[in-house]
C-alpha cells in the first residue's frame, strides 16, 4: 500500500503524457485480443467452407461411415481413419495419464527439491523436442521391437498402430506432467497442512486433498495432451505403416492427420476436396473433445466438492 502511494505522485506529474499513452496501449491490447478471436473464427469458417462441399457431394454417411478409402475409384470412406485416430489417441491417453500423474506427484511432493528441479528441467526439455525426432526414435527403437512381436505372432513385420500409440505416449507425457506439476504447485499449502493435522497420511492427503484441488489444471493438461496426440502427424506417419484399414493393434494404420498429409501433394479435384473434408472432421473432433473433457471433468469436480 505504501508503495502505491509514493508512485501516485509520479503518475500525477506525468498525467498529461499518460492519458494518450494509455488509450494507445488499450487499442493495441484490443487488437491483439481480437487477432486471436478473429483467426479462430476465420479458421472455422475456412474449414467449413472448404470441407463441407466435398462431404455433401460424397454423402455424409458414405464419408464418415464408409470403410474403404480408395481415391482411385472415388471411394472416400474415412471410418478406418477415424477409428485409428481414436484408438491410437485413446490408448496413448490411457497409458500416459496415470504415468504423468504419478510423475507429477513425485516431482511436487516426494522428490527432494534439487532432484525435482533437475527432473522438471528434463521433462520440459522433452516437451520441446520436435515431433520428427520422436518419429525417428520410434522408427529406430520401437518399430523393430514391434517387428519381433509381429514375427512371433505370425504376422508380417510392418509399422503398426501399437508403435504409433507408444510414440504418442512418450510425446504427450511431458505436456501432461508439466501442466499437472504447475497446477499442483498452485494448491495452497494449508490444504496439505489441514489434511495432515486431521490425521491423514501423506499419501492420503495428496490423493484426497491436493489432487482434487488441482483437478482443473490437470484436466487442462490432459486436454492439451489429447490435442497434441490427435493432431500429431509427422511422428505417427514414420511409424504407423499408414495403410487405410480398420485399426488392429499390430497392423498398419492410417490416422486422420496422416490421411491428409500423405496424399496432399498429388491430389486434385474431388480427392483434394475430400482431404479438406478430413480436415473438417479432425477440427470438429478436437472441438468436441475439448468441450466434453473440460466441461464434464471440471463439472464433476465442482459438484463432488460441494
Amino acid at each position: 500500500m505504501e508503495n502505491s502511494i509514493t508512485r501516485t505522485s509520479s503518475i500525477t506529474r506525468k498525467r498529461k503524457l499518460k492519458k494518450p499513452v494509455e488509450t494507445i496501449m488499450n487499442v493495441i491490447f484490443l487488437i491483439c485480443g481480437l487477432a486471436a478471436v478473429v483467426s479462430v473464427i476465420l479458421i472455422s469458417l475456412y474449414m467449413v467452407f472448404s470441407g463441407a462441399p466435398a462431404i455433401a457431394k460424397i454423402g455424409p454417411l458414405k464419408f464418415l461411415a464408409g470403410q474403404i478409402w480408395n481415391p482411385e475409384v472415388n471411394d472416400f470412406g474415412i471410418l478406418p481413419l477415424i477409428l485409428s485416430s481414436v484408438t491410437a489417441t485413446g490408448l496413448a491417453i490411457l497409458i500416459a495419464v496415470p504415468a504423468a500423474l504419478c510423475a507429477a506427484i513425485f516431482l511436487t511432493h516426494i522428490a527432494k527439491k534439487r532432484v525435482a528441479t533437475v527432473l522438471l528441467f528434463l521433462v520440459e526439455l522433452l516437451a520441446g523436442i520436435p515431433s520428427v525426432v520422436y518419429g525417428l526414435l520410434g522408427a529406430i527403437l520401437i518399430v523393430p521391437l514391434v517387428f519381433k512381436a509381429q514375427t512371433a505372432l505370425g504376422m508380417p513385420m510392418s509399422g503398426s498402430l501399437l508403435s504409433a500409440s507408444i510414440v504418442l505416449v512418450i510425446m504427450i507425457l511431458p505436456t501432461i506432467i508439466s501442466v499437472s506439476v504447475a497446477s499442483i504447485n498452485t494448491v495452497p499449502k494449508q490444504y496439505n497442512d489441514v489434511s495432515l493435522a486431521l490425521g491423514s497420511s501423506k499419501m492420503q492427503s495428496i490423493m484426497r486433498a491436493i489432487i482434487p484441488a488441482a483437478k482443473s489444471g490437470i484436466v487442462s493438461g490432459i486436454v492439451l495432451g489429447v490435442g497434441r496426440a490427435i493432431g500429431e502427424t509427422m511422428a505417427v506417419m514414420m511409424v504407423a505403416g499408414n495403410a487405410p484399414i480398420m485399426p488392429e493393434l499390430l497392423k498398419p494404420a492410417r490416422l486422420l492427420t496422416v490421411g491428409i498429409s500423405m496424399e496432399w501433394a498429388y491430389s486434385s479435384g474431388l480427392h483434394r476436396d475430400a482431404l479438406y473434408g478430413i480436415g473438417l472432421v479432425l477440427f470438429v473432433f478436437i472441438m468436441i473433445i475439448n468441450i466434453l473433457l473440460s466441461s464434464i471433468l471440471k463439472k464433476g469436480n465442482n459438484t463432488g466438492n460441494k
Partner: protein
Amino acid sequence: MKSMKKVLSIALLLAFALTIFAACTKSDTDKDSATLSGTVKTGGSTSVEKVMTALIYQFQGENQKVSVNYEMNGSGDGIKNTISGLYEIGHSSRELKTDGSEDGLTATAYAIDGIAIVVNKENGVTELTTEQVKDIYTGTIKNWSEVGGKDALITVVTREASSGTRSAFAEIVGLEKADKPETSIVANATTCDSTGAIQTTVSQNANAIGYMSFSDVDTAKVKTLGYNGVGCSEATLKDGSYTLKRDFYLITKTGATLSPAAKAFMDFVLGKDGQKIVASNKLLTIE
C-alpha cells in the same frame, strides 16, 4: 542513455524492415527475347510435373514473350486433347495405344524413368518375374519362400493412391483392374508418401519389398531386384532390356505443322539445354 537505446532500437527495426523490402525489388532480365511470341497450349501427365515445370520455367526465361501452358490432368486427357486439337503438345508418361484409338499421333520421348523393385539388403532373393511381382502385390504370394527366399512373411510397401510412380508401376506390372484406374494392390500394404520414405522403410525391414524411381536408388541402403531375368542398371535401362520403366513423351499430331513457339519448345526439350534439365531431375536422357 535511455533515449540512445530507443534511437538504436528504432534504427535497427528500420534496417530490418528495409531488408524485407529489398528482397522485393524487381529482377531485371530484359534480355533480347528474339522474335518468338505466343502461347503454347500443352497438358497431360502429372508424373512429368517436376521435370516439365523446370523445362517450361527455363524456356520461358529464355523466351520472355512465349508462355507455355501446362494443364495437369493425366496422360489420357493429354492424348485425347491433342487429338481434338485443344493442346498443341500433349504430355504422356505412357506409350500410345496401338488399338487404333490413338492413331495419327507421334510420341517423342525425351526422358526415361526407370522403376526399380527394391528389397532389404539381407534378402536372398535376386530377381522376380512379372507374375511374381503381381502376385506379391495382390496378396497371392505371402511368403518369401514362395519365390526362392527364406521362410518369412512379405511386407508389401507401396506409394500413396495418387502417386505417378504407383500408377506407372501398376500399369506396367498389370495390377490395374480392367477398364478401371483402380489398382488391386493389397489394402494392408504399408504406404509411404515419397520415394525416400520407401527406401528408408525397406532398408529397415528385412522382409519388405517396394518400388521406386531408379534414379533415387541408394545401393548402400537397399538392393534392386532383377525383373524377368534382367538386372536393373543404367545400361539395361538404356538398351531397353529392363522393361520396368517408362518414357516421358511429348505427343503431337503426325504431319501437322507446329507453331514456331511450340516447335521451339520441342527443340529446346530435346536439345542440349533441355536434356541437361532432364538429367538434373534424375532421369535418364534420350540419346
